[in-house]
């Protein structure tokens, strides 16, 4: 039975919006030309490929359903599990289901902690027990090295094969159509990703590639699940931020006078409250609200999802001021321009001037701000979740991963893999977003300073 979580709906709404905007831009030189400039940059193309992979994972994780429970007897109505799963969960079922007892290092065959184990001769001793799943297929642990290498090589070979196929197909479909795009960079980025993903996939079949966490969950699975959270925070927030920022900014700059005074007062007031504190206060209140209305949400996933959505709304409410200020300045400048004066001389209505003259001429600022904000929001989520005012503790996110792993800092030897996984996945995402944002800014307007 399909389930549509609120954030799923918004994510797909965004996908639709982006797609239709792309369609709209295609025929408009002033929008299409900057994008063409963006995609002439190697870093932009390479980071776009990386981002696309993240987005793919995120989207797969945004199609939820409730699996049917095995029917107790034929003819009875099908019962559905209370747990919502996503397509990604389906694909990663082995990762999700193979729990260990507690921590285990990446690719390990034994647990990280000593336990009482029963030796073959019946005595007990404290030793590192074998894992339930990691390396369980190995008959002799001595084969571990060989098995890992073989799997990695097989993964590489598969990745290379897939890469070649994609390249051949892409040459036909893409390269001829857009010859100016540096496809080499795209191929290199894709190659790098596949070279990592191939062996990881092969190894994940028999091991915990990135180890397991305290409750024995696979870290790789957690990292992949965190991607959706990051993306939702980074994009759904804009649904709140965008209308507020655009309307307030443009209205203040165009109408001036008391409208401007009121809007400036509003955003100075909001801006005056230190961001983290305002968000913290909001989230605390949200939490009280959700706790007191627990009966509204049939599943924990829906409740956690509501909190995620609330967090996005709060981040949007507190961060529209930057966009509004930029747009106000730009609208002030534009409204003095001669083509706006000409429109006044034709008696064109305010609404039409805003829609036809002002809005299209600030579109580049909106796009640049959105792209630049993305990485900031992803980073903010980690900090907020760490502080305890981010996503629901039951939602997997980079912030909750770091928060959980931090507790094990003092352990000797250190449990480093959760942190490392969060670091690598987050760094790649934010770096790609930052590089892409740079290219977008250069492509749309080299002079806009955000």
């Amino acid at each position, binding site marked *: 039975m399909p389930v549509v979580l609120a954030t799923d709906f918004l994510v797909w709404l965004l996908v639709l919006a982006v797609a239709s905007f792309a369609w709209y831009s295609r025929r408009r030189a002033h929008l299409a030309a900057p994008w063409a400039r963006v995609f002439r940059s190697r870093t932009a193309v390479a980071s776009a490929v990386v981002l696309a992979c993240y987005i793919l994972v995120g989207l797969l994780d945004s199609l939820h359903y409730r699996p049917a429970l095995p029917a107790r007897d034929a003819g009875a109505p099908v019962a559905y599990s209370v747990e919502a799963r996503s397509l990604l969960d389906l694909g990663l079922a082995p990762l999700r289901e193979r729990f260990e007892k507690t921590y285990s290092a990446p690719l390990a065959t034994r647990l990280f902690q000593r336990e009482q184990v029963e030796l073959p001769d019946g005595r007990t001793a404290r030793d590192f027990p074998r894992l339930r799943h990691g390396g369980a297929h190995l008959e002799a642990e001595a084969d571990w090295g060989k098995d890992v290498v073989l799997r990695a090589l097989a993964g590489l070979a598969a990745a290379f094969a897939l890469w070649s196929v994609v390249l051949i197909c892409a040459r036909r479909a893409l390269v001829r159509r857009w010859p100016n795009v540096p496809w080499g960079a795209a191929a290199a980025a894709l190659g790098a990703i596949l070279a990592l993903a191939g062996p990881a996939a092969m190894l994940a079949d028999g091991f915990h590639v990135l180890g397991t966490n305290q409750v024995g969950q696979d870290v790789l699975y957690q990292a992949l699940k965190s991607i959706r959270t990051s993306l939702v925070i980074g994009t759904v927030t804009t649904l709140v931020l965008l209308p507020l920022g655009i309307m307030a900014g443009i209205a203040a700059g165009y109408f001036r006078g008391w409208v401007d005074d009121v809007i400036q007062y509003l955003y100075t007031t909001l801006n*005056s409250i230190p961001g983290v504190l305002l968000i913290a*206060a909001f989230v605390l209140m949200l939490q*009280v609200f959700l706790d007191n209305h627990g009966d509204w949400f049939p599943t924990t996933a829906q409740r956690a999802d509501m909190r995620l959505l609330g967090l996005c709304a709060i981040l949007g409410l507190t961060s529209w001021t930057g966009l509004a200020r930029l747009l106000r300045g730009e609208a002030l400048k534009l409204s003095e321009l001669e083509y706006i004066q000409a429109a006044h001389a034709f008696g064109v209505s305010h609404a039409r001037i805003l829609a036809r003259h002002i809005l299209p001429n600030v579109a580049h600022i909106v796009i640049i701000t959105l792209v630049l904000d993305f990485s900031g929001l992803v980073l903010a989520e980690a900090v907020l979740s760490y502080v305890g005012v981010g996503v629901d503790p039951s939602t997997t996110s*980079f912030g909750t991963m770091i928060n959980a792993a*931090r507790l094990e800092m003092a352990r000797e030897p250190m449990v480093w893999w959760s*942190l490392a996984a969060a*670091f690598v996945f987050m760094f790649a995402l*934010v770096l790609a977003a*930052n590089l892409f944002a740079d290219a977008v800014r250069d492509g749309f307007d080299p002079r806009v*300073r955000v």
Partner: protein
Amino acid sequence: MLGYILRRTLYAIPILVGINLLTFALFFLVNTPDDMARLQLGVKRVTPEAIAKWKAERGYDRPLLWNAPAAGTKKFTDTIFFDKSVKLFALDFGRAEDNRDIFNEIRTRMGPSLALAVPVFLVGLMVNITFALGMAFFRATYLDLWGVVLCVAMMSISSLFYIIGGQYLISKLWHLVPISGYEGGVDAAKFLVLPVLIGVIGAFGSSTRFYRTLFLEEMGKDYVRTARAKGLAESVVMFRHVLKNALIPILTGVVVVIPTLFLGSLITESFFGIPGLGSYTIDAIQAQDFAVVRSMVFIGSVLYIVGLLLTDISYTLVDPRVRLA
């Protein structure tokens, strides 16, 4: 100029009132005190009596805005709004969940916060400007290119990792300085070295890159060409002409944060166990101590508004166009 500053000061009043109303609405209208009590008490102990007691202890048992049965001015003063929001203006913050006076707590915690935030601010500013100036000076060379790459890479790392990584490397691996803790006086230095260093590194990427664009923008202006046409050496052009102009947006941009240095830095303080306002806030958030969070929101806003005021003043000081116009 004096009139200008006075006007900006007066403008701060409606903003403060706005913040006060906003926080009041947030803390008392979105959720009722009953909701808060239920959350604080936990599911097991929720009885109407317990809630009433919890509210009475904290003064939440009065009407929100208007106390009709009370006499005289008490109609207004004997309300949650007056007690919890209006009194903030008099720096009367009330008591925390642990029954300590919030104002006293804030006063004692300000010291450690400043001891950390001020060095981070000053060292960071100098380091960032120096590097940005260097990159602008060697613009369009490999030095500049790799500098930008480094900045973008550093921007892409969450501040949490700087703290965790720094703590691990320096304290655990190299045993140079204590991992966490704090002592007053001169001893503070050894506890502060690491957090200061991490604070500086954490902000390096984005600030340096931003300052670099400011410098480059300034270097594209006409007066730079004039200065070159005079035969001035590139270093003179850079230091006498470009730096002086670029420092105006840089300095006036950072002035706004100076007052908020009092608040300390949330994450760093709590990681390193420095008993400042940052860790105080974090603890309050995690313990859901609404009184403390409300107080910090108010103080933070006041400090920010002071910062805005200082920004206006600093403009009139450093920019002759504003000073003399």
